[in-house]
Each structure stands twice: as C-alpha cells, then as structure tokens.
C-alpha cells in the first residue's frame, strides 16, 4: 500500500481538474499511462499550465514532451528536477 505524498496529491488534483481523464485519478497507480487513461495532447497543455501555476515553476521547452506527462510518477520526477521538493507546499 502506498501513501500518496503531498506532491503526489497535488499532481492528482491538477489532473482531476484539467486532465479530462476517463478514469478516476485517485485510482491510477504512479506509473499508469495517462494517455491510455484518456489524456489528449490538448488536455496535457492545460495540465502543464496548471502545474506551472500550482507549483510556481516554468517548464523549459525541452521538457514539453509526451514522456514528461506520461504518468503521475513522471510528472513528479520532472517537478523535482525543477526544484519542487516533495511534501512541501
């Protein structure tokens, strides 16, 4: 059983609001393919913008690709690469 960290929860909240996924975001595992779950490239742009707003960061151009938004875990790893620390607001 994994407890979702605060970072993870915030990512999932953004996905719920902007991802327009067919399935319930909470039930997805950390490495579930979001595109399989219904994430379109259109929606991924809104997710990206919302993540930037939520975490006060800016995705550089070389991180604006499918793999970064491929799963909850991938998003988390990208955010941490950009300096967001897990568990902190």
């Amino acid at each position: 059983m994994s407890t979702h960290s605060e970072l993870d929860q915030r990512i999932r909240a953004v996905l719920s609001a902007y991802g327009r996924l067919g399935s319930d975001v909470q039930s997805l595992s950390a490495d579930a393919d979001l595109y399989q779950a219904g994430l379109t490239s259109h929606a991924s742009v809104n997710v990206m913008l919302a993540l930037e707003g939520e975490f006060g960061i800016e995705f550089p151009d070389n991180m604006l690709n499918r793999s970064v938004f491929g799963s909850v875990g991938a998003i988390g790893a990208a955010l941490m690469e950009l300096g967001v620390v897990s568990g902190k607001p």
Partner: protein
Amino acid sequence: MSGRLRCVSSHRRHVLRSGWELLRTPPGFASGAEALVEGNWVPIGSLGTVAHCERDAGRWTLDATGLASFDADDWWYRVRFDGAPESESGEVVLGFDGLATLCDVWLNGTSLLRSENMFVAAEVPVTGQLHRSENELVLCFRSLESALKVKRPRPAWRVPMLTQQQLRWHRTSLLGRTPGWSPPAPPVGPWRDVWLEARDFVSVVSHRMHSSLELERGAISLNLVLRAASTVRSVLAIVECGEFTQEAFLASDGVNGWSGAVLVDNPQLWWPHTHGTPTLYSVKLRIAVGEVDVEVDLGKTGFRSVEVGTLEGDFSIRVNKVDVFCRGACWMPLDPASLRATADQMSAALEQVCQAGMNMIRVTGLTTYEEDAFYDECDRRGVLVWQDFMFANMDYPLADQAFSSSVEVEVGQQVARWQGRPCIAVVCGNSEVSQQAAMWGASREHWEPEFFTRTLANWVSQGLPGVPYWPSSAWGGAFPHQVDAGTVSYYGVGAYLRTPEDARLSGLRFATECLALANVPVPASVEALAGGNPLRVTHARWKERAPRDLAAGWDFEDVRDHYMRHLFAVDAARLRYVDHDRYLHFARATSRELMVATFSQWRATGSSCRGALVLALRDLWTGAGWGLIDAMGRPKSCYWGLRQALQPLAVLLTDEGCNGVAVHVTNDRDASSRIRLKLEVWRRDALLALGERDLTVSGRCTLKLSALELLDHFMDLTNAYRFGPLAHDCVVVTAYREDGVRVGEAFHFPSGSGVERLDDPGLLAVASGSDEKGNVTLTVSAASLAVAVCIEAQGYLADDDCFHLAPGQKRMLQLRPIDGRSRMQRGIASALNSRAPAVISIAG
C-alpha cells in the same frame, strides 16, 4: 488629439522629418542619452521605423539573412531642431503620432514622455520649454526581446503562429513577429510622424462629429471643447457637397463647449461603389475668436445607415436598408518595413480594390491601424471597412490595470479617428481570440472575455453611435469557429482540404477571412526574387516566403497542390519534377479557378453566404504569399479571376450535379439591367449547342436559371449522368448589354475533364504599336478552347492572367510597361492545353 481634425488655419505644424540620427546599442546599455558615445550616430535620410532607416541606408533588405532581429537591441533616434517662433496667444506642442513600442523621450536632456503602446499618439505641451535653436530630442526604443524575458503569468492558451507567447503583454503589432507568414521586419521606432506645432488663438481640445439619417433628414452633429486665450465669439459649422452648402451656428455651453447640428434635407446617400455613389459632404468650422476667424477642416462625412442582421445565425450587412453582399480582402500594409504609404500609393491600391469589384476591406487585428489616407480613400471610393482593434489570437491580460488603461486610451483615440466616416461598416473586438482559446482546448469560460463582449462594445457604441460592433472575427454558434453561424475564418476550402463544394455545403454565412492559398505571382515578379527565374519552389529562398502554420507538417503550397490535383487531375509533385514552368502555370490557374468557383457559390442565388474577405489583399514580400496582389503591387491570376466574378453586374456558373449547370446573374445596382445571355457548348472548335435569352435583372437582385433553359434538348453539361463518354469540353456563358458590350462571362468545365495537351488550340497573339503611355494592346484569340492563357512579355505586365478563351473568341488586353520601356521586343502567349506557346507577333 487629432481624431478628424485635418487642419486648423491658425496652427503651424512642422513635421520633424529630416536631420535625424540613429544609433543601435545592446539592450539596456544606457538608461539615458548622456551615456552614449558621440561618434557612433549615423545620419538618417527621412524619419521612420528602424527597418525603413536601415533599408534607406543600404544596411538591410528583406533578402538579408542571419541578422539579429530589430527587437534584440535598443535603438536611439536623435534630432536637433529650432524652436517655433511663438506668439503670445498660442501654445507649442510636440506630437508623436506613433512610437513602437517601449519608448523613452527626452527633450533637451529632460525626460518628456514614456510611451508603451505603439497605437497611442502623444501630444506634449512644450510652450516656453524650447530654446530658439539647437533643441535636442532623443527617443530610445527599448529592446522588446529583453522585455519579453521578464517573468509574467502564462497565458491560458498558446498561439501556434507566435514563438513569443508573452507578446500579449505589449501593445504592439504582430507583424514581423509571425515567422510563418510575415517578413522579419518587426516595427521598431517612430512609425508615424513626430512634429512641432504652434497653435495660435485657439486649440480644439476635443471634438465629436457624427452624421445620422432620420427618414429623409440628415444631421451632422458636432460637439467641441475649445481652449483660447481670448473669447470665442461664435462657431459656425459649414457643410458642403458640390453646389450644396448649409451652415449652422453651434451653441455655447457657457464655458468651453460648443455643440449643435447641421441639418441636410434629403441628403445624397453614401453607398459602397458596387451599389451606388459614395457621396461625401465636407465639414468645416469657422471659429470667431478675439479679432480673427480661424478655419478648422474636419474632413468629410457621409450619410448612410449600417445594420447587421443576425437572425438564426445569419450575419448580413445592410447599408441604407439594402442587403449588401460584401466581398473583398484583408488589408496588408503596402510597405511592411516602414508601415507607411503616400496618398498616391494608397489611392492606387484602393483603385485596384474597386476595379476588382470588391467592396469591403478588413483591417485585421494582426496588423496595425491604418493612416488617415487609407480611410479617406475608402470613404471617397465607397469601400466598406471591417475594422478590427489590434488584438489577435492571444489571451490578453485585460485584468491588469496598466494594460487596460493603456487600451482605453488607444481605443478612444482610434474611435475618434473613425467617427463620421461612412466607410466604417463594422468595428470588431479582435481577430480570432475566442477561436484560438477554443481550438487550443481552453474551456468555454475563456471563449467570451468580458472585455470584448461588453466593455469594448460600450466604448464603441458611445464613440461611434450607429456603427455595429462585433466581438470577434470568428464568433457565433456553439463554438466560435462554427461555420454556419455568425462570422468565421473559413478555410474549409483551403487549409482544411475540403472539396470545393464545401463552400456552400458548410452553410457559410460570413467569412472575415478565407481561402489563404499560396498564390504564385506573375512570371515577371518571380524573376524579381533573388535568383530570378531559375528559382524553384523547393528552394529555401522560395519556401521562406511561402506561408506556413509553424506547428504543422505542411505548408500552404501543399494546400494549393492538393487543389491542383483536384481541379486538373494533375500529379503536382510529378509535374514539378519534370516541368517546373508548367507546374507554376498550373499553380496560378489553380488559385484563380478555385477562388472563382468558391465565390460563385457564395454569390449564387440561394446561398447562405452574405460576404467573404480573402486572406489577403496583398503580399508583404515577393513570393507565393496569400495576397491576391503581389508585394510589388502586381495582380496575380486570382485577382483577375475575382475581377470577373465580383462585378456589380456579373454572370456566375455553379455545378449543380444532376441538376446541371446553373446560371446566376447578379445585379447589385439600383437600376434594373437588360442583358442578353448567350450560352455556348463547345467541343474542340465545334459549337455543339447555342442558346440565347434576353433578360431583365431587377436592381439589387440575383436571377437563377438552369443552363438547359436556353437549350431545346437535354445535355449532360455537368457529366453527372455519364450516359456516354464526355461529349463536350466546356460551357461558356456570356452576358451582353443592349449596346453589344460584353459585361460578364463565365466558363464551366465538366467534372472529370483534365487539361490535355491537345493539338495546338491555335493561339494567336498580335500586339499593336504603343500609345503615348507606352501601353500596348494585345489581341489574343484561339481556334479551339484555350485554357488558362498566360501572357509573358519582357518588360510588360498584362491586365489579365490565366484566362480562358472560347473557340474563335477574341480578347483585347492592355500590356503596360514595367519601367517606361517604349517598345515591346518579344513575348509569348501560352495555354495550359497547348503544347507550345504562341509567339506574340508585333505589328507596326
């Protein structure tokens, strides 16, 4: 502010046009002029944008590559000038009609002005601040690239045509900043006049002018606020039109305000030129102040009403209670480098518009507000204007106080310039903002920003009573870019590669932009591209100027090639391999045929479409751009095609499948027209069928008849039934006036017919001697059908391109010399369906 003020007799304006110097520094190099090095200033010929100055000095052209963008650096302008001799009763003002975009201004070392909106004009009183001589004015235009690096909140949606999404924060034009379709010459610097004006006796602080029509009485209402050192005793308004003159004194409010109206009984109305005469009335004021009379010229106005009908998704424009089919194009500045044009150039450009039968021009939010000379020409010639505010596609930060205050000033000034102008038919909030939000995937609440639906609408209704306002160029329906409701950017025929029939199947109501094909210019212009004739469409230099959507894997030449295949059953890629010249000939014919077929459907009887504006009127730089006319002002094949289809009295053919060919005769004018319609069905040089009918087309009407009504036996003119092999090559319908003059012509080719290289269609081209202007008359004829005839004569431009010739038909064209050459030495006429071109024989 200048608004409609053309001239005040007691004001002396000196435009600071010459004596300027220019300096480029790295961004942020110096905060003020004192830090600059003396020696690096270079003299400027005449004041203008950086692009204009650099081009003038020979340091830059549109062909230059690898240079830094003008937006990368700070640009300094400096001039030394004498003070105006002042009088006791006057003021002295420094005016800046346009500064692009982030500009600091110093006068004699003191900070005078900070401007951050390219579209806002500034006037600064400098009475008493000027020396008699050697005043120094310094302007610094700060690097926009640097300003764009400042971190700001991201937009809710992205705009694919821009590499810089944060341009939304800056009030500046998108021209030169859209690498897919505009040349790399972003406007930087003083793009309008800088002037010094001494204003004696009286100043007009503000003015409002509005002409209205109530039943049969016209009224020109005027409201002024004046400022004068001595008492203003009276203000007389004088309205004139030809022999007619009417005067009225304005009433004072006891303080500074004067208002009143000049009434004109049964005024002559202003009409778009396709529907009537664009009658104008001049408005002047005579202000008696102190011991003198001061004359003020407020320009010209006209009496007309404009309404937009929007019942059930419709979008139809009615002028003077008459439905007008609006047709024309989206304006592009005549010189993208300087963004200026002389009155003569403006006149010539609008003349081309009128000659083509176009009656509306759209000034799009992608470009700039035009100069007064543009609106003067549209008023004078009867060309309607669809005027966007300079907002396009982006998520503008309208909640930002500084931004919206600046916009309010901008809007107020532009609206003041348009007041009383009969050409202004629709004022529109923006270009494609709602559409972009929706297409990008933003949710519905982003599609209708209150600023464009409410705020701007209110400002416009206050400043321009009676002029319809529309929130966005693509608006109406369940989503902004829904085609069969409201207005739309229609690219079904075009980028979305739908069949030509989609023009009517889509149920289009009004296209504020459409078609956008990569139109190949005439051979003489292709030669002018660096590399000249040997330049191939695959060459980087050609491709650089062919429009593209940055995010797409195709460009607009692919779109044109798709339709080339559809219309002519030709493999575009293969043809390009083996015969590039023939490929270009097909390309030009494609643009023309597709546009004629599209507009024929839109203008036909029963069409849902009430108007369409082609993107664009003119190319910004020489190449296969969207323009109907190339960057050198030369019409392309599609311009000539539209000229045939858009005249006030026109014959149009539509393919109705199993219903045969429909003939539509349209008459925009008030008076009815008696015409003779002639229908011919040809195969090779054999006339298979002939029919004639005399008709009266009532004013403001379209008539529709089936081609078969003119024949006494059935023919499968559209090749819909296919009872046997294709029996004919084409159908030609011609309309003649009672005096025998031909007033309209249209060709129809049955579906499934390609363009085969037949035996020589027997093209004959004979050139007469030249007249005193050097023009040559060319007579062209063909023994059998000649498809898409093109004339190439060294040093000359023909006034038609890619036109068809029916067997035995004779056409007379004018060939105009490009550069004053007085003798034509050689030329050829070629048709798509001829093996070899015909050499022009030169008589006399």
